C-alpha cells in the first residue's frame, strides 16, 4: 500500500466515520482544523488499527498534527512490517 492509497483510506475514514466535509479534506490539513479533538484522534488510531492493521501508540501521536503526518507514520510502519 503506497502513500497515495493510505491517504485515500484516511479520506474515507475521516469523511465517513468522523463526518469531516469532503471539501475540507486536504492532506496538509491539521486534525484540529478538520474539527477533531484529542479524543477523536485516539479513536482515529483505533479505526486505523482495525482497517489498516497498523498500531499507533499514544506517545507517537505527539508529533502527528496533520493528515500527512499520520499517513507518513502509517507508511513507515507498513514498510517496517514488510521489510
Amino acid at each position, binding site marked *: 500500500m503506497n502513500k497515495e492509497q493510505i491517504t485515500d483510506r484516511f479520506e474515507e475514514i475521516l469523511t465517513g466515520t468522523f463526518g469531516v466535509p469532503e471539501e475540507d479534506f486536504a492532506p496538509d490539513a491539521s486534525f484540529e482544523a478538520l474539527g477533531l479533538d484529542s*479524543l477523536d484522534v*485516539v*479513536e482515529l488510531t*483505533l479505526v486505523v488499527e*482495525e482497517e489498516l492493521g497498523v498500531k499507533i501508540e499514544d506517545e507517537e501521536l505527539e508529533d502527528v498534527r496533520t493528515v500527512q503526518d499520520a499517513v507518513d507514520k502509517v507508511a513507515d510502519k507498513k514498510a517496517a512490517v514488510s521489510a
Partner: protein
Amino acid sequence: MSGVALITGGSGGIGSAIARWLAEDGFTVLVGYRSNEEVAEQVASSCNGKAEPVRIDVTDEDSIAAAIDRAGDLGGLTVLVNNAGITSDALLMRLGTDDLDRTLDVDLRGAILASKAAIRPMLRARGGRIINVSSVVGLRGNAGQTAYAAAKSGLVGFSKSLAREVGKKGITVNVVAPGYVETAMTDALGDEQRRALTDQAPIARAVTAGEVAATVAFLASDHAAAITGAVIPVDGGAAA
C-alpha cells in the same frame, strides 16, 4: 449495550449483587477482587450467566491493565463499575495520614485510573458505561468519615467532568450514591449507629444491595443512553 462488564470490589456485598444483576442482563461479567479470590469465585459461580473472577488492584495501573486485557479477550469492555472502596473511620483530629492516603487512593484515585484505562476499549466498542459507586456520605457528610466523604464526593466532580469529555462518543458516566446498606463493611457498626442511620432515611430501613444493583443495571442498559453526569441516590431518601 452488551459485552463485558467489569466490577471492581466485586466480592463485596454491593459488588456481588451488581455482578449477579449484570450477568442476568446478559453481560459477560468480570468479578473484580483484590485479595478475596475465593469469594470472587463463589460470586462468579452464583451468577446466572457468563462470569469469572479477575484480580484487580485499583491502586496499581498494571493490575488494572491486566483486568481490562482480560475483558478484551472476552469480547471487549463496555461497562465499568467502580465499586471498590474502603473506609477508615475516625474523627479528623485522630485520622492517621496513612489511613487518609489509603482511602483516597482506593476510593477516588483508583476509580479515576480504572476509568482512564476503560476509555480506549469503549471507544473501540463505539460506546460504554462508567458507573461510579459513591455514597450518601459523599453528598451529605458524616462525622467520623471525612476522608471517605471527600473521596466519595470527589467521584461526583470526576464523573461530571469525564461525562463532558466522552459524551459524544456514546460513553456515559454516572454516579450511584447508596445510603446505608447492610454488608460486611457495615457489620463493624454498633446497634446504635445502625439505628441512627436507618432513622435518617424517610423509608426507615436499610437499603438492600439488590436495590443498588438494579439502579446500576438500569444505568448500564440501553434505556439510560441519555443519562450522563447524573448522581442517583439510592438511599431511602437520606440525602433528600
